[in-house]
């Protein structure tokens, strides 16, 4: 599965760069022909968002889209940015590298000035060079693999805590719970393996690493993996993949007679996790997660605004998408233009801008200085806040 994915990724990257080359050529052509069509400085500033609207993570798409739209509408009601209105363009990322590169190219040709999307790390990764070549700064609200940071692209900023920060939070909570032998399970995707790797590096003294296991996503029976992981006799198991497999693994761990603690990472935080595992098996399962609207104190008015506008409750990454748009607007205001380099400088200079996760100041790596991860727990079949880890 890994080799298949990497093969697909590299092919996609190739196709992507070819498309970028073609697009740059056509952009030059436009410039020559129209003699500076960019002069429409009073037109709307277009923000682009890639988010999963189909595929396995399609439940997340509307949450992110509506969160961003709410911020756009609020800013426009206040007169926009530098006298110009904001406009949000959304493309489907489908949690799939192919769809994501196609969507990124579409956004760039549509004249997007800042990207405020990106959910699945594996799908977001190949879009980085596309936006970079077009000079478009990216404020990524959800995707948070360390691989995104490791590219050291100057146009990439992460609004979500990173995988490393998630691992730190996980370790902190494992210690609090008195875990001694921790086993890690991942699904071999970029995002999942990344968290498992960084967590494994932290598990040196106590708690100690009691085994690692990678599963193949998309199967039904994980009893062999469960059997292998229980050989190390762990008292705490951390699953770093997505909820579809997570639900099955929790259920099969309990069926195999495991009574210890189970924790999942943010990709598994979804009510479907509880449905798939069954409420009994899922009861008491912990999760590392960035703030969701329900767990933020003082967000009641924001939630009410969101509900009255979209007729549905906000969900995971609604707040981060909302914040990404606000940060983008702030940077454009400070920069006084939508020029990519000026906006990047303005983003780097931001200090103390209020986000849901706390005051914003980017690190030299363009990540949040504090991840804002907290611990959730499944209680009576619902995912609720357990420990804000402050």
């Amino acid at each position: 599965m890994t080799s298949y994915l990497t093969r697909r990724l590299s092919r996609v990257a190739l196709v992507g760069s070819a498309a970028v080359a073609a697009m740059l050529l056509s952009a030059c052509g436009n410039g020559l022909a129209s003699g500076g069509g960019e002069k429409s400085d009073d037109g709307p500033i277009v923000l682009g968002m890639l988010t999963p609207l189909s595929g396995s993570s399609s439940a997340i798409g509307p949450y992110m889209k509506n969160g961003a739209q709410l911020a756009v509408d609020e800013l426009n009601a206040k007169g926009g940015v530098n006298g110009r209105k904001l406009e949000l363009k959304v493309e489907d990322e489908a949690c799939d590298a192919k769809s994501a590169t196609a969507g990124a190219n579409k956004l760039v040709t549509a004249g997007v000035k800042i990207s405020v999307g990106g959910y699945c790390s594996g799908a977001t990764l190949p879009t980085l060079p596309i936006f970079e070549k077009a000079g478009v700064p990216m404020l990524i609200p959800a995707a948070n693999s360390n691989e995104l940071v490791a590219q050291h692209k100057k146009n990439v900023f992460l609004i979500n805590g990173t995988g490393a920060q998630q691992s730190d939070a996980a370790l902190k909570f494992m210690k609090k719970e008195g875990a001694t032998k921790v086993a890690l399970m991942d699904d071999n995707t970029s995002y999942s393996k990344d968290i498992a790797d960084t967590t494994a590096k932290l598990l040196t003294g106590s708690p100690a690493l009691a085994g690692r296991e990678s599963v193949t996503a998309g199967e039904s029976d994980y009893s062999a993996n469960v059997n292998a992981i229980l050989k190390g006799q762990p008292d705490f198991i951390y699953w770093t993949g997505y909820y579809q497999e997570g639900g099955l693994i929790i259920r099969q761990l309990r069926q195999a007679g495991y009574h210890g603690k189970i924790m999942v990472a943010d990709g598994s935080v979804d009510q479907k996790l509880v449905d798939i595992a069954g409420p009994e098996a899922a009861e008491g399962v912990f999760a590392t997660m960035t703030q969701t609207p329900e767990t933020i104190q003082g967000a009641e008015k924001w939630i009410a605004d969101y509900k009255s506008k979209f007729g549905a409750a906000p969900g995971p990454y609604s707040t981060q998408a909302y914040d990404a748009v606000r940060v983008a607007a702030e940077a454009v205001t400070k920069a006084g233009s939508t020029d990519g380099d000026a906006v990047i400088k303005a983003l780097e200079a931001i200090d103390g801008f209020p986000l849901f996760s706390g005051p914003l100041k980017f690190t030299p790596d363009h990540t949040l200085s504090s991840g804002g991860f907290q611990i959730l727990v499944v209680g009576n079949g619902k995912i609720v806040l357990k420990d804000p880890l402050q």
Partner: protein
Amino acid sequence: MTQLLWNGLFVGSFYALVALGYTMVYGIIRLLNFAHGDLYMLGAFVGFGVLSVAGGLATGLGFVALLIVLIIAMLVTGTAGLLLERVAYRPLRDAPRLSVLITAVGASFAIEYGMRLVAGPNPEVYPVRLAGDPVNLLGARITVQQVSLILIAILLMAGLQWLVMGTETGRAMRAISQDPTAALYMGINVDAVIARTFFIGSALAGAAGVMAGSYYGKIDFLMGFVIGLKAFTAAVIGGIGNIKGAMLGGLTLGLLESIGTAWIGGQWRDVFAFTFLIIFLTLRPTGILGERVTERV
């Protein structure tokens, strides 16, 4: 160790049920029906639909309800198999084999993404779940539900064996597999028998789909892809075209995966299982029971 064997046998019986459809179709018309795994998915969704409509009634009846649902799903997927054969394969029976292979791949995508249009891209959860308290037997944790699912699988396989070896239809199937033209001259309605083969093979895949849905709980429109590949592998291990071979192949693959995971870790499981497969097929290209398949000129 007994736990490993039990896990392997349990997964293997699912592989075997799906592999039977592959091997029957291949044995008779030399076609690799790549849409077969998707009929498994279709079965799981039909079961889900029926259980959701029946609602509280089904939850009350439990296992009996699942048996009824199993039969309904088998009838529906069997009919879907008939349709598939009529639309995608029969018009191409005299065409080069590659063309049929491509229509099979096309049919697979059509079923997968057709189901996505109907049921949506998100995974669904079965309303009735088979879960019970495990019993310890020789160091393995075994539930009554697991045993009953294996029993159903064995019953279905035994029924198929009887059908192919002991009935008129079965004799016609075997005749067509040896020589379709001669079978036609002997007065066998070749089209009808092939259609029946598709019905039976697809119904078995549908049954496996309902069983997987009710045991594991989660179903989605792409669930047939991986198991389709695994079942195809099982059919080849056992000797493609051979019914007993498909059963043996399914169990072998299940055991290989289970033992491979335990010995060298989950990320190496497929490497282990498929390296074994390559070595085995190099030494014995016809599979475990494949010697009865004779190449026609």
